């Protein structure tokens, strides 16, 4: 490991620490959340951990209650705060619902489903705003005076039957409810996006479902907006002001960052001691090593809750894909049971946490042991049989996990799901994705460092030899069968870490989250990544999983493009994304195709750099436009983004391509000058026939 990289990781974690210290309020959760049935047609099969607001035929059937712990906040703080509620997956017509909030008249005493609804005072009343990403926000300004005067600081969320449709059920995931401190509050007169304006496009909580699930739910086509003037509520910025937070009473979850930081520091110290004065090789430059690490806290700081959640899902897919990458691209084996390898440890962690009441964070060793054990079972077959048969064994094991284990209640829990406690560290709850982000970042850092250590060790070299030629590897003294089995165990271990991260991140596990086809998705990611390092895996995970989550690709294109790209990849271009990245890097350095003279080796060609940056910027513009399209339900914004971003991106790409061609011509001319100082004799090669070029001249 290079010193610059160490500095990058240290700086990254320091920044995360600073953020966690500066923004503790983001992690503040309401003290009590509950719901109660107020009519005969309340949701009959409620999911544990969700709150329900329901109306049937204009008659209220269920209402939800949220109480917050003001913790000494003043009137101004409360007036500037807002409550964000994230929808659960089992709502009905939830995207057209209209909700309102009244203040509580008596305090809440319990969580979950209440038998008797507490008294509510509707003289103080405010509407909830539905954001473009599906979450509901409630500005707490109307309630500030009342609460500060000593009343119970809570709201009842009731269906606003005057304004909305007569039948809907809104399900709210209690785990994701957050009380946001001073934020840019949406003005009260801008809260009219509910009802007829909202189009049913924005998905509920995104799940990390497989891109290739057989379940043929197509992406719903955007419904054209109503003829009324399209008003679009600006999403409130959740960037918190440091000054406002510092006065807060909540202590920051500094330990969240400090513990992983200590672990990594130990790793770093160990690594640097083992290799004193490592040989300096020409690799990527200093910025290239620093930037990725420094970008992480920046990204977390800039993003909102939903986007952080989605990116975290991509990160979990990345962790799982790393294990498969070691198996497929380093050892040349295949696993079709990866979904089960992730799912079973996830359920083990969930069971452990639900039964003991401890935070799921503590389940990590359990998850790793389970994953390694599962991988080891398949590895036993790898000790004896050849690659192809072992691959079929993994298929059989995957089916057995999906059809047998995932139907046993002693592993998946009761039908309504396991109630997993909120992850916490030393009693400090981490209630939002942004609060959990440092945990995930630290996990990824450890996974990346560990994987690279494996790749550079004897194990990695032996794996590569096994992949290239098992017979030659055996002749060279590599225990082929053992390394194959080890690779399966490693893949299981990484899958276990991914399962643990899934439980920590999503806090809801169902067997549906790990279908057999999900294993194929991971295979796609590993195959697209190609042999090499982890950069390709990260890009592939972002393309496949991120593409599915952010709906970058329109409609069902991804379902066709994925397999076609995979077929092309395995048959024609096996280097994958890693090969592309390596090619781009060497192209930028101007090595490829240049004559082997000294002054040409490391020249950076400005024309090529400009061309490549234009193409990258163009692609970025298109992706950004697509991202915005995927995250809004307003059709006119979608069209606008597509037109502006798409056209800009396309033109940039075309300019870049033109520059590239020009660069190629210039380089070819240079090459000719270098190689052929004297013009060759033309007549000798034509051998009496007409030279071919003449034909063109006569045309």
């Amino acid at each position, binding site marked *: 490991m290079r010193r610059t990289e160490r500095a990058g990781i240290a700086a990254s974690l320091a920044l995360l620490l600073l953020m966690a210290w500066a923004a503790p309020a983001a992690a503040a959760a309401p003290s009590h959340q509950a719901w109660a049935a107020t009519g005969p047609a309340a949701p009959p099969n409620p999911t544990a951990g969700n709150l329900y607001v329901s109306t049937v035929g204009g008659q209220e059937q269920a209402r939800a209650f949220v109480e917050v712990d003001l913790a000494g906040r003043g009137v101004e703080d409360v007036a500037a705060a807002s409550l964000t509620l994230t929808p659960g997956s089992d709502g009905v017509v939830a995207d057209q619902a209209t909700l309102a909030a009244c203040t509580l008249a008596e305090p809440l005493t319990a969580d979950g489903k209440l038998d008797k609804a507490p008294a509510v005072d509707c003289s103080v009343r405010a509407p909830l705003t539905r954001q473009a990403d599906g979450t509901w926000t409630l500005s707490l300004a109307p309630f500030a005076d009342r609460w500060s005067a000593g009343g119970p600081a809570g709201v009842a969320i009731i269906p606003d039957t005057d304004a909305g449709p007569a039948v809907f059920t809104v399900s709210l995931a209690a785990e994701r409810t957050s009380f946001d401190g001073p934020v840019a509050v949406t003005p009260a007169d801008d809260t009219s996006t509910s009802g007829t304006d909202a189009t049913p496009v924005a998905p509920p909580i995104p799940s990390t479902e497989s891109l290739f699930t057989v379940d043929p739910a197509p992406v719903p086509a955007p419904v054209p907006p109503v003829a009324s003037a399209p008003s679009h509520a600006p999403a409130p910025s959740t960037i918190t002001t440091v000054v406002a937070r510092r006065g807060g009473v909540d202590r920051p979850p500094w330990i969240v960052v400090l513990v992983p930081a200590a672990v990594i520091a130990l790793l770093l110290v160990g690594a640097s001691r083992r290799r004193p004065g490592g040989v300096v090789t020409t690799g990527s430059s200093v910025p290239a090593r620093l930037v990725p690490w420094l970008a992480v806290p920046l990204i977390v700081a800039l993003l909102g809750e939903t986007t952080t959640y989605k990116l975290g899902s991509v990160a979990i897919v990345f962790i799982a894909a790393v294990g498969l990458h070691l198996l497929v691209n380093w050892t040349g084996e295949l696993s079709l049971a990866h979904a089960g390898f992730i799912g079973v440890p996830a359920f083990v962690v969930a069971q452990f946490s639900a039964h003991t009441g401890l935070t799921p964070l503590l389940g990590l060793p359990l998850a790793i042991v389970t994953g390694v054990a599962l991988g080891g079972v398949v590895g036993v077959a790898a*000790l004896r049989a050849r690659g192809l*048969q072992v691959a079929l064994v993994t298929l059989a094991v995957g089916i057995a996990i999906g*059809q047998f284990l995932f139907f046993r209640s002693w592993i998946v829990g009761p039908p309504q799901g396991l109630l997993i406690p909120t992850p916490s560290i030393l009693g400090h709850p981490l209630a939002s994705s942004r609060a959990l982000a440092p945990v995930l970042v630290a996990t990824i850092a450890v996974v990346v460092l560990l994987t690279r250590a494996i790749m550079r060790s004897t194990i990695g070299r032996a794996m590569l030899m096994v992949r290239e030629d098992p017979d030659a590897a055996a002749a060279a003294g590599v225990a082929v069968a053992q390394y194959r089995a080890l690779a399966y165990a490693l893949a299981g271990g990484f899958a276990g870490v991914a399962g643990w991260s899934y439980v920590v991140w999503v806090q809801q596990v169902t067997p549906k989250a790990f279908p057999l086809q999900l294993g194929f998705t991971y295979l796609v990611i590993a195959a697209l990544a190609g042999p090499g390092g982890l950069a390709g895996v990260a890009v592939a995970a972002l393309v496949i999983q991120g593409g599915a989550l952010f709906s970058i690709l329109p409609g069902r294109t991804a379902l066709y493009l994925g397999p076609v790209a995979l077929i092309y990849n395995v048959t024609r271009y096996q280097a994958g994304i890693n090969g592309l990245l390596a090619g781009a890097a060497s192209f930028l350095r101007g090595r490829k195709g240049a004559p082997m003279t000294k002054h040409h080796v490391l020249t950076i060609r400005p024309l090529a750099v400009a061309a490549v940056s234009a193409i990258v910027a163009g692609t970025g513009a298109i992706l950004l436009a697509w991202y915005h399209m995927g995250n809004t339900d307003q059709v006119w914004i979608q069209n606008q983004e597509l037109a502006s971003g798409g056209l800009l991106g396309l033109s940039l790409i075309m300019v870049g391509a033109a520059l590239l061609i020009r660069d190629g011509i210039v380089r070819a001319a240079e090459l000719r000058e270098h190689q052929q100082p004297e013009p060759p004799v033309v007549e000798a090669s034509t051998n009496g026939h007409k030279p071919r070029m003449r034909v063109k001249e006569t045309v």
Partner: protein
Amino acid sequence: MGAVVVNGVFVGLIYGLLAVGLVVVYRVSRIVNFAYGETGMLCAFVFFGIRLHPTATRLVDHGILVALPAAMLLGAGIGAAMERIIARPLRTNPVLNGMVGTIATSLLFITLGIDLWGPDVHVTKPLVQGEGITLLGLVVSPQQLLIGACTVAILVALGTTYRFTSFGLRLRATAIDPYAASLSGINTDATAMGTWALAGALSAVSAILIAPLVAMNVVFMTFLALRSFAAALLGGLTSLVGAFCAGLLLGVAEGVITFKSPVAGMTDAVVAVGILVLLVVRPGGLVRASY
């Protein structure tokens, strides 16, 4: 119990029929064709699309004379295309790449099927009508008898082709050593493509035979194919008879296990454990083919 075994035999016939098609491809290209079931699915939809189409039924029962060749041609075309696109470039590469390629193809076919025909169950029409016979207290439908007869006929025809025809000889030579076969004047490319086409047509016939017995939607072959992979593996991957017998065994075992302990997924667990144990004890599978 007798009825359970008889029923299991007929389920096993289906597994065996599919496993035989997998072995045909495996012998020549060393690739397990994961898209085998999906190829058949596409063909079955085309078959019943033509057969149940109003203009076809007006020809009274001659619809089958159009539909069956069309479906088989489609299957053969898909098979040949897969050989050209996936199997041939991979001849010198690790076999696992070929498997990934066929997995991708199967995903592509399922997506295509959903877009063309939707996810719902489609109407089929029995290929044969009749009362059926009673065997050990169990009524065996004529459809099941047809499957049995066709499976045996296909097995005999394949065996005869492999053993006694010039094409079969070329097939076997290509399977044993493609390089030596090409040296002795065999067009190995054409042979491999012919085999894939043959297997494609076979998958079409299998799917058409099976479809009236099950609910025909776009994934009706996928789950049957998953079980037949296990059968092919148990049978050693290279032996037609081995694969067929393993399929029969699996069908009967499934019937008995479901009868004895009606727990969801018990069969899958037993199959997984059985395969693990078998591969540790006898890595080559139950039957070694002698070509």
